[in-house]
């Protein structure tokens, strides 16, 4: 990059007219240029990471796969194990996509897990209690999730309540409604596969040799790809980032911030309902007590994925890498045969390191 730009490069520069500005003509002429060529390799790396926020989790993911591969060899490096990791992160990946949208707007959604479970219960109960056709029950479940998200969005955007408080409250409300409505009753897997196999749709799989891809895994990959496209290549996606970055600036620039927030929370609720459907496929049954940790796990995936909790920064690809990192650690450590507490300990270390790295990358802008 050149450094030759000068103050007088404007179309038709006027002469400085204030007395104290006379000396400016003799001053250094490179005020507005960038000094990009005399960087140390570390600074270059820092700039690269600033530009590609999902690079850090990707590097960590590749390294962790390599390390477990070296320790465990073929037991870990098989198509079966690799795809098993994908199956285990499918639900967290889908819920994490919903969480990503909300966190990009500088919010947080603690109710994702509850919405997921309530939606799956609605799908199951509507089929078995009211005898609705499964396809209609699934639609009702999706609508239920979107509605819960819509309530979150209204409270955040219109009532201007902090997202943490709104979703903390909604988490309790939705979870309690879920137990009250379902009467704490589980619908058995055999009944579902006999009478409403559509509910277990995402449990079906495709096999290539040892590799097993459930429809849930495929749904997660497609969903993340779709959201990546939407976030990066549509006006709505750019507005998600703008709202999280600086809502006042976005409003003045012509973005309808309230409508954006409501749409983001509603979409997040809808994606959680999709996760609820995928959850039935994963565990086979409809259980009101399933997925208790989905909110914490999704936030973990997002944070390890390098998205900023202050909004406006990061990539949805980072979230999926973050979810996979957790998956690789859990399964890898289990195969090694350590106490499972080591997994939690290491994930805790990863979370704190991810945020520390994020702060370091952010210094580029300072």
């Amino acid at each position, binding site marked *: *990059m*050149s450094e030759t*730009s000068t*103050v007088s*490069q*404007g*179309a*038709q*520069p*006027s002469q*400085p*007219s*204030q007395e*104290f*500005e006379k000396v*400016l003509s003799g*001053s250094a002429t490179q*005020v*507005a*240029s*960038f000094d990009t060529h005399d960087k140390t390799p570390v600074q270059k790396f820092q700039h690269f990471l*600033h530009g590609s926020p999902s690079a850090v989790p990707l590097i960590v993911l590749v390294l962790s796969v390599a390390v477990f591969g070296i320790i465990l060899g073929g037991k870990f490096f098989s198509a079966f194990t690799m795809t098993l990791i994908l199956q285990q992160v499918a639900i967290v990946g889908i819920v994490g996509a919903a969480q990503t949208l909300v966190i990009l707007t500088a919010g947080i959604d603690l109710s994702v897990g509850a919405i997921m479970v309530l939606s799956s219960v609605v799908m199951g109960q509507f089929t078995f209690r009211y005898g609705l056709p499964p396809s209609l029950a699934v639609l009702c479940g999706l609508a239920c999730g979107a509605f819960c998200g819509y309530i979150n969005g209204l409270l955040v955007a219109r009532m201007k309540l902090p997202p943490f408080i709104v979703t903390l409250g909604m988490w309790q409300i939705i979870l309690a409604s879920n137990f009250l409505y379902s009467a704490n009753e589980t619908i058995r897997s055999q009944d579902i596969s006999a009478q409403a196999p559509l509910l277990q749709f995402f449990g079906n799989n495709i096999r290539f040799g040892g590799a097993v891809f459930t429809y849930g895994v495929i749904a997660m990959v497609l969903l993340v790809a779709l959201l990546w*496209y939407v976030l990066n*290549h*549509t*006006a*709505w996606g*750019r*507005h998600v*980032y*703008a709202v999280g*970055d*600086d809502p*006042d*600036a*976005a409003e*003045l*620039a*012509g*973005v309808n911030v309230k409508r954006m927030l409501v749409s983001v929370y509603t979409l997040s609720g809808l994606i959680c309902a999709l996760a609820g459907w995928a959850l039935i496929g994963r565990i086979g049954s409809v259980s009101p007590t399933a997925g208790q940790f989905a909110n914490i796990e999704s936030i973990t995936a997002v944070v390890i994925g390098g998205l900023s909790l202050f909004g*406006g*920064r990061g990539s949805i690809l980072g979230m999926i890498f973050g979810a996979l990192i957790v998956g690789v650690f859990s399964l890898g450590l289990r195969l090694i045969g350590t106490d499972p507490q080591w997994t939690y300990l290491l994930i805790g270390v990863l979370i704190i390191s991810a945020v520390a790295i994020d702060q370091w990358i952010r210094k*580029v*802008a300072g």
Partner: protein
Amino acid sequence: MALEPILTARGLVKRYGRVTALDQADFDLYPGEILAVIGDNGAGKSSMIKAISGAITPDEGEIRLEGQPVHFRSPIEARSAGIETVYQNLALSPALSIADNMFLGREIRKPGVMGQWFRKLDRTAMEKFARDKLSELGLMTIQNINQAVETLSGGQRQGVAVARAAAFGSKVIILDEPTAALGVKESRRVLELILDVRRRGIPIVLISHNMPHVFEVADRIHIHRLGRRLTVINPKDYTMSDAVAFMTGAKLPAEAVAA
């Protein structure tokens, strides 16, 4: 100077509880001019500007753009009518790129199926447009149109904000304290930008506390005092201390309104 004002306001009143921020304020902007608005803190000049740019709705009074009465309910409405405002806080999203910022809220979509059905943005077109606009204003010291705004200096950010307004402001550009946060050199750069925008024939409203800057670039100076227009002076006929005296009430202007 053309005789018909492009933007006028008559008898604007805005009350906040028991405080009257605007008390029968008038305002005239002529085509192709730079009109500076000065006044003490609390004189009501920012309320007047907000009324014109749609950020507040006046309780009484009438605003006309090119002779037609207008009623803006939001800055977006004023913007679509051709009035662009560069706010003091710039209204840029730091993590988004220069091109993204310039087109925020008015993105260009790709033609054909990709744009219509997949809502895909036409990045190439937007980047080219942004680059052209910035180089027109002599701002191409910014090399990478995709770099985040937060990596720019204060003057460059101001430049991007002014370029955005100049690119889309078809009728009027309002600049609120554009040099307040800048150093000597960067202020100079922004003043050149302002003169450059006027050269293309777009009238500018410049709100500033900086008397030397105001006297240098303004064609006329609107002096606001106690919620209304006190007078409009020609900077060639008065000194800075006269203007300050009018502004603070130390001296009263002769009844005749200059220019």
